[in-house]
């Protein structure tokens, strides 16, 4: 049976919740009574008093208004000093709006409510992005409030074609999301596919990124990130201009970008802030270091256990010398140290900053040095794992970094099993896997695998801006001209 909107029902429902306010307000001019329904802490109470209640109590016009319907019309018209007012009869929608921070004036006789968006809750201020900091570029970043995040995007794109569709997910959390795209550039089929996926999210609480990501990615078994996130509004606006779609989720201080390809995650805003030679150089370094972090431990295992002819003589002798009293095999040493490295990272994240620094010194330097001195590990392995680890940190995207770290383990295991043969098997599997990934109709390795050469001008090398004449045609097929 459908429940009608009634202040009494709501009052009973929230009788044990101290923060929910359901209070009758009598308009003295005409004796009409309505109930104010809001959540303390989510609203701007000063604005409620000044803009709404004060006008209701002082306005002489109300003496002429005798019915609830007339009062409602008055409020929806010019009776209150607030712009965001709407009428709602559905109790579910009223509850949802009020619980997200709005104020409802419930008129029991009409079984309707006038809703005002007077949300204001404690939030942190806009700060510089922690993960994607740049020296030369904008210093603002997204925060946990969706509307502020959408405003940050809107501030950068003043196009009338920028669409911000609001969606909701989570049976209990009812988390608001905004799907942003530029309607005359983005592929609307992709937009609809993303909307469909969001609508299929049928879980209680969309509280952590994984709840969104796992529903949105197409190949769930892959350890490589297929959804890009960024803290930077400028990055979102650039990608929206390219035809990508942004998803702003309330409560998350970053914005998702779709469709996502591997090269996107190897780019940083600084690439475009610097001269294109510098940008290209930095990218080449990044790609080189990705290869190093992926393959160096596996290469070391293969070269020291199977095909030592791959090493120059002096290096082979040096490694041999450093390893002579170590009781473990190269594979055990490398895998053990890689695990120890992960433990250090994990411990560093969990501990308070001050303790974390001390722990890094203790773990990295003291234990590492002692382990070498005690001949538990060879110095060469420490260098290899440290180099691979540091090279991994250079990757701009943390999700990609995690995927690469896990792949590094698998390659090291394959190298331990069958040397360079195993490594090559791993490499082939990796390439086949990456080539098989498809992200909303766009190849994951695109534009590396694109036939269109013009798409590759912003991949390994960052060409001058004048060469970026077209948008990737698989992302924005209808409107590919970027500049003339």
């Amino acid at each position, binding site marked *: 049976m459908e429940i009608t909107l009634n202040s009494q029902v709501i009052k009973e429902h929230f009788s044990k919740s101290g923060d929910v306010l359901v209070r009758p307000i009598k308009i003295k001019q005409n004796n009409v009574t309505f109930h104010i329904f809001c959540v303390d802490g989510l609203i701007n109470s000063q604005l409620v008093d000044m803009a709404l209640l004060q006008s209701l109590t002082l306005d002489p016009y109300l003496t002429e208004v005798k019915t609830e319907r007339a009062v409602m019309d008055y409020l929806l018209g010019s009776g209150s000093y607030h712009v965001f007012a709407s009428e709602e009869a559905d109790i579910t929608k009223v509850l949802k709006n009020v619980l997200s921070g709005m104020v409802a004036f419930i008129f029991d006789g009409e079984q309707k409510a006038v809703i005002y968006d007077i949300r204001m809750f404690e939030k942190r201020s806009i700060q510089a992005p922690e993960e994607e900091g740049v020296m030369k570029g904008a210093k603002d970043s997204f925060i946990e409030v969706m509307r502020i995040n959408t405003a940050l995007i809107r501030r950068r794109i003043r196009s009338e074609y920028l669409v911000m569709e609001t969606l909701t997910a989570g049976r209990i959390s009812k988390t608001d999301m905004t799907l942003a795209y530029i309607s005359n550039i983005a592929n609307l089929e992709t937009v609809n596919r993303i909307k469909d996926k969001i609508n299929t999210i049928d879980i209680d609480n969309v509280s952590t990124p994984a709840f969104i990501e796992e529903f949105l990615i197409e190949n769930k078994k892959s350890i490589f990130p297929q959804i890009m996130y960024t803290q930077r509004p400028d990055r979102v606006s650039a990608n929206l201009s390219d035809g990508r779609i942004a998803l702003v989720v309330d409560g998350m201080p970053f914005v998702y970008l779709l469709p996502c390809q591997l090269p996107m995650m190897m780019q940083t805003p600084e690439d475009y802030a610097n001269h294109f030679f510098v940008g290209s150089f930095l990218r080449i370094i990044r790609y080189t270091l990705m290869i190093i972090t992926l393959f160096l431990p596996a290469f070391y295992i293969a070269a020291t256990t199977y095909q030592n002819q791959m090493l120059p003589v002096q290096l082979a002798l040096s490694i041999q010398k450093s390893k002579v009293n170590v009781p473990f095999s190269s594979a055990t040493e490398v895998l053990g140290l890689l695990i120890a490295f992960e433990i250090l990272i994990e411990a560093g994240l969990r501990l308070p900053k001050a303790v974390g620094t001390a722990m890094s010194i203790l773990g990295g330097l003291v234990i590492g040095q002692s382990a070498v001195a005690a001949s538990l590990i060879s110095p060469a392995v420490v260098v290899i794992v440290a180099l691979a680890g540091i090279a991994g940190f250079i990757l701009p995207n943390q999700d990609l970094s995690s995927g690469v770290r896990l792949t590094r383990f698998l390659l090291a295991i394959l190298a331990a*099993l069958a040397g360079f043969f195993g490594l090559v098997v791993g490499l082939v599997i990796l390439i086949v896997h990456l080539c098989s990934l498809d992200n909303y109709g766009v190849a994951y390795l695109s534009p590396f695998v694109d036939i269109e050469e013009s798409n590759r001008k912003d991949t390994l090398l960052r060409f001058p801006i004048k060469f970026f004449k077209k948008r990737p045609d698989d992302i924005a097929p209808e409107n590919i001209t970027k500049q003339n």
Partner: protein
Amino acid sequence: MKRLIFLLLPFLLCGCSRDMNRREIDEVNFIHALGIDYADGEYTISAIFNSGGGADPEGSGEAGSEEISNGTGKTPYAAYEDLRLKNKKAITLTQAGFFLIGDTAAKEGIDLCLDFLSRNETIKLESLIYVTKGEKAEDFINAAIENKQAVSEDLEAIKQKQQEIITRNDNNLVNILNEMKQNYSSVLIPYLTAEESGFLIEGYAIFDQLKLYDYLDKETSSGINFMKNIVRSYPIHLENGTGLSISYTDTDLKTKLENDKIIIKIKVNFESMIKEVNMEGDTFTYEVLSKLTKEQNQYVENIIRKAADYSVTTGLDILQLARIIENQNVSQWRDLKETWEDNISKIEFEYELNSRIVKSFILGKER
């Protein structure tokens, strides 16, 4: 199916690891250089190891001293197996950079010496091969060790010196094996002589039918380098006391077949720099430079002529002429190759040398 393959993959790879010479790097002794000798119907293999191959727990960082270990057998491979069995640790040729063939083993035939190496799948194909002139490789190595020389380092120094003089080292294993397959040309391998302070390359050892035939002197060997167009730098000492250094050469060999005559035109272009002047007056005048140019042309021509004459006199194709004639005259080569041994002595050479002297930066107008 895909899941099954992924589950089976580690087990399949585990199975593979048995056949992949799995051995930890500290469990093997690297052979740096290998000497091959022949005497009294037996081959001797002498391997040079680094005795400090990890045996220094303090990690002083200094290279360990070198040790020599021998194995004997009826064949080089049997000798190598003997060496392997005698050694405490497993030995490997993976890091062997140098193979020294003793004088007697070279006379017995390099094919016999190198066959077992060519079949070793772990060997470095760019390992260099040398012949030890007039003595056994084992004695050559022992003398060097007694002389407190670091054999591997000295051999490495020889390699570097070679690269200073010529643009490529043709005496690597893969190249020598390829040359051995050429039926019409002689194999050339540089020979080493021992000096008090180290080793020295003087020239090429010539092989006829893969057996050591002769050792060429320095000039004839240089002539071969000019003909092969691999000279990087070469010093010229003119009679008037002027010293020059060749900094660039380009040799072109053109063959001409006229009736029964084979004419090979050798065209050499080169540049040199004046390195030393011991005569009065201004060196950098047109007249003096022209005179020096003519003299240096004659100097280089004499060197090349020496190599060509040796080839004609001995009937050995030390200049790889067969390959050049074959490449430039494919159809005629079919007839020529039947009587190549006779034809090589009848080859006529024509020389055309062009050079120019480039002014050294630090020398002024005076002298």
